[in-house]
């Protein structure tokens, strides 16, 4: 195609093109990633957590498609090593001569096995990604490391890291010990770091920062009884722009009527640990909040629905003010975070165009909401076994069955703690109108082990005994009805939640299965079109275009694999 264009160019166009080409490198160097580029639908690059702001993980690329996916071949593979270099200190070098830059406020040299769960950014031919305490820049053409950054930690929960955010030449990483670190994307050198949560309160930070204009949106996690919040930071200095608490912090705060007392409310959880999606037209940042705390016990202070925990929330991104909310698990008692990525879709609903939010929650319920008001359009169950709710209320919210709380004698509950789904990114294809999500129909026994009426703190007070999975699936849901249109059962009995997903305009759906295979499915019906066994796929596949070739990228543990067509 490029050759044809050249032949068709007239001399004046040639001159103009030469002029532009001469300027192009300088522009690229100066720009890094212009935040306006993230507004474009997902195509050649992958500039933010979900690829674009919609959360769809739907790429417009079609070079790899149903007709040729069977010819996909390995372009490169690259295994990452974390931690400080053996020599230690600034400017140390790891394999291939890439520098390791060391930062951090702690002394922690301990570094567990590398497991890449992050979304990987692809900007101007470079991949940027992270694991707890580690960040890398890697050449997207052959996988060689350009630089590695290692953060010496003060400790804390090192459960995962969802990726980096990028603004011009800056990269942003959250650390388990609650710092936001700004790195120079070209060199990996640290520009600054700021504290984003109080480590003493047992916060830990895993979220991929989301860049919207001149806002860096960061969230945190906490398993003790502390309040959740989302905050916006200045991209150049890290200074706080606004902070939104997901629970009432004092008397008179909105939502206080849904708690028994202020002390419990202001320790009530609702942590924001998965990135949300963004509606640029309406300046709405839309995301999910985590479980109320204490999670499994019911002290009088928790009497009520416990707003704004376990909810989909829309904030004005410029002010941090709440525009609407919809609670998916009122008064949750099973740690059913509603943090799973909401997907923003413009489509038909009841014969009229509508702006919507699609969300499959850890609690086993799927929701279609109006994006401007939060009005509920559809609620359905996407797991056959879910039994913790008695039914739906007039707003379509599941109504908790108190008999399915943790009890002394034991309650058989579905889903189990892992959930009917979890953080693994879902996907949506405008071609099929289907929402894709990895699901698990699992049972567990929940025993109440703390009978003190004051309850337990955090996730305490219960003993969970996993019983079994009745089946794990890749599930495709019609957003108009909430009905499951097809689902592919992973064979065997080792039920678990599968991996995150990618859809493309090449009429393909990619995801890792439960057995370590990366699989391409037909998004219309779940038919398998291609697979390769990598072993323990650990993130959602992504795709990008470089030098006229489309790449498919996925991580399995400490190793990245890129596939392409030659």
């Amino acid at each position: 195609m490029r050759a044809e264009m050249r032949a068709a160019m007239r001399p004046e166009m040639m001159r103009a093109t030469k002029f532009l080409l001469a300027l192009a490198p300088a522009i690229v160097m100066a720009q890094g990633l212009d935040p306006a580029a993230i507004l474009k639908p997902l195509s050649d690059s992958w500039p933010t957590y979900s690829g674009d702001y919609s959360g769809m993980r739907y790429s417009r690329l079609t070079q790899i498609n149903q007709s040729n996916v069977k010819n996909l071949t390995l372009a490169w593979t690259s295994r990452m090593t974390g931690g400080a270099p053996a020599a230690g200190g600034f400017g140390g070098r790891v394999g291939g001569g890439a520098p390791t830059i060391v930062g951090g406020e702690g002394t922690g040299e301990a570094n567990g096995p590398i497991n890449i769960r992050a979304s990987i950014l692809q900007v101007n031919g470079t991949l940027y990604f992270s694991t707890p305490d580690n960040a890398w820049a890697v050449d997207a053409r052959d996988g060689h490391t350009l630089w590695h950054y290692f953060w010496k930690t003060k400790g804390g929960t090192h459960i995962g890291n969802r990726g980096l955010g990028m603004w011009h030449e800056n990269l942003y990483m959250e650390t388990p010990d609650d710092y936001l670190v700004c790195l120079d994307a070209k060199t990996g050198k640290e520009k600054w770091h700021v504290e984003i949560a109080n480590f003493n309160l047992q916060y830990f930070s895993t979220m991929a920062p989301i860049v919207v204009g001149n806002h860096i949106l960061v969230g945190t996690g906490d398993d003790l009884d502390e309040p959740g919040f989302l905050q916006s930071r200045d991209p150049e200095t890290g200074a706080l722009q606004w902070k939104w608490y997901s629970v009432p912090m004092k008397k008179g705060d909105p939502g206080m009527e849904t708690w028994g007392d202020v002390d419990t409310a202001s320790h009530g959880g609702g942590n924001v640990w998965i990135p949300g999606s963004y509606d640029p037209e309406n300046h709405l940042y839309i995301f999910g909040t985590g479980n109320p705390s204490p999670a499994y016990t019911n002290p009088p202070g928790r009497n009520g629905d416990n707003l704004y925990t376990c909810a989909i929330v829309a904030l004005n991104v410029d002010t941090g003010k709440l525009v609407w909310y919809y609670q998916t698990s009122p008064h949750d008692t099973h740690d059913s975070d509603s943090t799973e990525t909401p997907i923003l879709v413009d489509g038909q609903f009841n014969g009229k165009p509508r702006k919507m939010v699609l969300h499959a929650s850890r609690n086993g319920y799927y929701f279609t909401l109006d994006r401007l008001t939060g009005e509920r359009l559809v609620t359905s169950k996407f797991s056959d076994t879910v039994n913790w709710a008695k039914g739906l209320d007039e707003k379509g919210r599941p109504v908790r069955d108190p008999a399915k709380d943790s009890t002394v004698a034991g309650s058989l509950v579905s889903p189990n703690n892992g959930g009917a789904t979890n953080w693994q990114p879902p996907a949506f294809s405008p071609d099929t109108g289907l929402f894709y999500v990895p699901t698990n129909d699992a049972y567990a026994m929940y025993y109440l082990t703390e009978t003190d009426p004051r309850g337990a703190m955090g996730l305490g007070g219960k003993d969970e005994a996993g019983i079994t999975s009745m089946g794990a699936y890749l599930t495709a849901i019609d957003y108009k009805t909430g009905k499951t249109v097809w689902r592919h059962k992973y064979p065997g009995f080792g039920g678990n939640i599968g991996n995150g997903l990618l859809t493309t305009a090449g009429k393909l759906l990619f995801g890792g299965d439960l057995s370590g295979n990366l699989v391409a499915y037909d998004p219309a019906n779940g038919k398998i079109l291609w697979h390769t066994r990598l072993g323990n796929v650990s993130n959602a596949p992504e795709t990008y275009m470089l030098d006229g070739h489309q790449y498919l990228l996925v991580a399995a543990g400490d190793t990245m694999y890129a596939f392409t067509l030659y």
Partner: protein
Amino acid sequence: MVERGKALYGVNCSFCHGSDARGGEGGPNLLRAQVVLDDQNGELILPIVQNGRPDRGMPPINLTTAQVADVAAFVHSFRVGGYDISRMTPPTILVGNAKAGEAYFKSACASCHSVTGDLKGIGAKYADPKTLQNTMLLPGGGRGGRGGGGGGPVVTVSVTPAAGAKVDGRLVRIDDFIVTLALADGTQRTFRRDGDVPKVELHDPLAKHRELLGKYTDNDIHNLTAYLVTVK
């Protein structure tokens, strides 16, 4: 220091904040309070103790700096974490009606099991009724948040290639592309799967246990457990 602090705490603080510092008559849980979590040796607690919090109904308490340091040492001596250890643990999970459990057993379980045969003495085999209950629901279940897999009776599989004889064995691994069996002689054999070829039949000895999970009420489970613990 902790002992001295405990005594001071008992006299001056426990009425409002509870003897275990987890909250009591009007006073909040101190263990998860920011001031306490940020405090090292009483330095942040001191001004609050000495000045009180009149807006929240807390009076000033007349303690010296050294005494507050002792109180702080006592409050910091508690383990504080997201996976809070239970203190008032119920002595037993058994609440069910053994007679109702026996009736349920006869209707739902007796076609495969007998309390004088394969389940003879089952109540004596498990010291903890919780283990018995989990095992009853799914032999091999009850370990952490993930279900299925080993511990219980094994899943067997029959594979019938397009050409050739049927092969039987214990299921090692199955996905959409591969099935691996352990054969009677201890060796393994793997077949490539391509849709319905070869024919693969899984034999799940626990299929009926799984079916029951969607049918039990929690009462059925409790009654059945209460009955089985009496089978000694």
